[in-house]
């Protein structure tokens, strides 16, 4: 396996060679990133954070850049919410015709040469992977974040000026539309996959407020054979309040390895919800650095999986300053032979006295063959802190099911009610009404899928 490492990264190095590092200020960072990636290589089962993720299906396929397709404006419509400003990307590239960027803030496409001189980029882009704002040393470089930094074609940069409170959410839609001839073939048979590297940078100035909704979706829900490898960076200045929703509704055959990184300054609040419904092989790696006194971070998530879907959520929250708080609530519903991993790491530095951290991961298994892994890890180096974690993996409450049925509610409906009741603790947190309704609809659609697939396993 060790000898194979070179051949596995080769095709990605070729992608980089094909496009080059490009112009400054990003050229140097891209070059550094590809070197870091080359040095680290793809993770192996020996890497603790990747032990339970089988990257085989991705690494066996030959990556080709996603085609720069221009789609009709209508193809994005089903995924867009009313009442939002929006930036739409197709296969990782900006689609200006479908977009209406917010006014009064900085918002541009990373491929737009006009943005190249922007202070936002110079100061913040790539800080999460080049050591300027990375995790503690033991975490190392995130291979796919490095890969994204080296290879992203385009993306969104959003800067909210100090003191500005945006009333409308900003929706960033990442639409994948693989060309018809790209297909990974049956379950890992060597073929090609179209790969895109969406990149998002959000910089919230002091005392600003904004809500950003990221939507990952496929123009054709039945599409397979694509690989989306996004990276998002959030910089939350003192006193800022940033809400973030990450809806992952990729095609069921898609691969998705995402990285998101938030840095919070004094009294900043970052509240991020991750809702995962799609994809065959999905990772969502989140790093939150609580870098200022009183910073407050909320990370919620829901994954609803069936068939042979795999989703891993890997969290790392670092409390670096006193009086910082973090709350995590991740819930999973698994049917069929679906598998999930929750790796939640809370790291409390010595300086971070009075830290208040809570982490909860609850999993509901609907079939005998479904499997959920839950690994909470607390590393605490301060002595005056409150840290709790809880993790459960269970089945539907048979007594509750009987209770509902004894009142005349049929099995299917009772089953759906209980699963919905379990999941809504997360979906109910969406305060933006169109988003909440969409999440409800997706949840019900997934549950219907679960039901029509039959129960038990």
């Amino acid at each position: 396996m060790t000898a194979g490492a070179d051949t596995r990264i080769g095709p990605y190095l070729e992608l980089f060679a094909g496009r080059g590092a490009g112009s400054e200020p990003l050229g140097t960072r891209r070059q550094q990133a590809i070197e870091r990636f080359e040095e680290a290589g793809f993770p192996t089962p020996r890497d603790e954070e990747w032990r339970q993720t089988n990257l085989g299906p991705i690494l066996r396929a030959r990556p080709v850049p996603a085609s720069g397709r221009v789609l009709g404006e209508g193809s994005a419509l089903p995924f867009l919410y009313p009442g939002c400003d929006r930036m739409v990307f197709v296969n990782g590239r900006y689609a200006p015709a479908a977009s209406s960027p917010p006014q009064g803030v900085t918002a541009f496409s990373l491929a737009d040469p006009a943005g190249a001189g922007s202070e936002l980029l110079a100061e913040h882009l790539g800080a999460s992977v080049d050591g300027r704002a990375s995790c503690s040393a033991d975490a190392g470089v995130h291979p796919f974040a490095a890969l994204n930094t080296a290879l992203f074609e385009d993306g969104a940069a959003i800067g909210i000026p100090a003191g500005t409170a945006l009333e409308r959410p900003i929706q960033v839609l990442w639409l994948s539309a693989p060309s018809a001839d790209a297909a990974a073939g049956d379950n890992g048979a060597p073929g090609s996959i179209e790969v895109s590297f969406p990149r998002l940078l959000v910089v919230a100035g002091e005392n600003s407020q904004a809500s950003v909704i990221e939507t990952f979706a496929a123009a054709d829900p039945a599409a397979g054979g694509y690989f989306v490898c996004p990276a998002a960076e959030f910089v939350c200045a003192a006193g800022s309040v940033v809400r973030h929703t990450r809806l992952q509704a990729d095609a069921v055959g898609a691969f998705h390895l995402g990285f998101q990184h938030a840095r919070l300054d004094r009294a900043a609040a970052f509240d991020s919800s991750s809702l995962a419904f799609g994809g065959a092989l999905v990772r969502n790696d989140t790093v939150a650095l609580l870098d200022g006194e009183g910073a407050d971070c909320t990370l919620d998530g829901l994954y609803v999986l069936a068939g042979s879907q795999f989703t891993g959520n890997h969290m790392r929250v670092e409390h670096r300053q006193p009086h910082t708080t973090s709350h995590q609530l991740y819930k999973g519903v698994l049917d069929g032979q679906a598998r999930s991993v929750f790796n939640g790491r809370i790291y409390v530095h010595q300086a971070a006295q009075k830290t208040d951290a809570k982490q909860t991961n609850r999993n509901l298994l609907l079939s005998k063959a479904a499997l959920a892994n839950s690994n909470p890890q607390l590393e605490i180096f301060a002595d005056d802190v409150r840290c709790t974690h809880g993790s459960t993996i269970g089945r539907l409450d048979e007594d509750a099911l009987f209770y509902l049925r004894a009142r005349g509610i049929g099995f299917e409906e009772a089953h759906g009610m209980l699963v919905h009741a379990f999941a809504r603790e997360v979906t109910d947190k969406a305060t933006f009404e169109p988003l909440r309704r969409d999440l409800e609809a997706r949840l019900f659609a997934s549950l219907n899928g679960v039901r029509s697939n039959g129960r038990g396993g």
Partner: protein
Amino acid sequence: MLRVRDLHARVEQQEILKGVDLEVKAGEVHAVMGPNGSGKSTLAQVLAGKEDYEVTAGSLELEGEDLQEMAPEERAHAGLFLAFQYPVEIPGVGNSYFLKAAVNANRKARGESELDAMDFLKLLRERATLVDVDEALLRRPVNDGFSGGEKKRNEILQMAVLEPRLAVLDETDSGLDIDALKTVAAGVNALRAENRAFVVITHYQRLLNYIVPDHVHVLLDGRIVRSGGSELAHELEEKGYAGFDGARAGA
């Protein structure tokens, strides 16, 4: 209305009911009394169709229909209602949402049109008043964080809304203080009707001061050892169940 014949049932290989006979006619209230472990709750659960219990012999009929052939929800559609001894907490499911789903599932199964939100709310308010349930309970998740008394009242409210033909009350009095007991009993009495029957399962005679039964049955070790009128409950109160061992021995 209800006809139970020589009912034998077991759970995990242990026989609990060893030949129960019970016949309940429309308009009647029957009390089934017995000590812990006599099989009272098993009888209730078997009637409602809990899958953990296996009927090994005998028959169960509601209005001439074989209950054993019916899923729990079908039994409800046929007019059976069980007030649970331990109502289940269901966080995340709103109480009134649940009740509306239940009412409409029953209506649909009976070929009636479903109630819309307005009509349902009207029904719910009316019945909540009838059985003296605070409307605040309706806005909370089903039984979630309810006190013991609130849970039992919620059972009675569900019964009032669902209008069953046969209601089985499984130790609805247990854990209630005297005021709650009176409220629950008043709710039951308000629902007594010529075409409706009740089976009140209880350990103690106290509830029967407020819900006066037409018939009392003593259940001991999986069998009904004596049946009589409401005076039998008072006899039990005086003598205790020990006095009935002889009756069983002689039976």
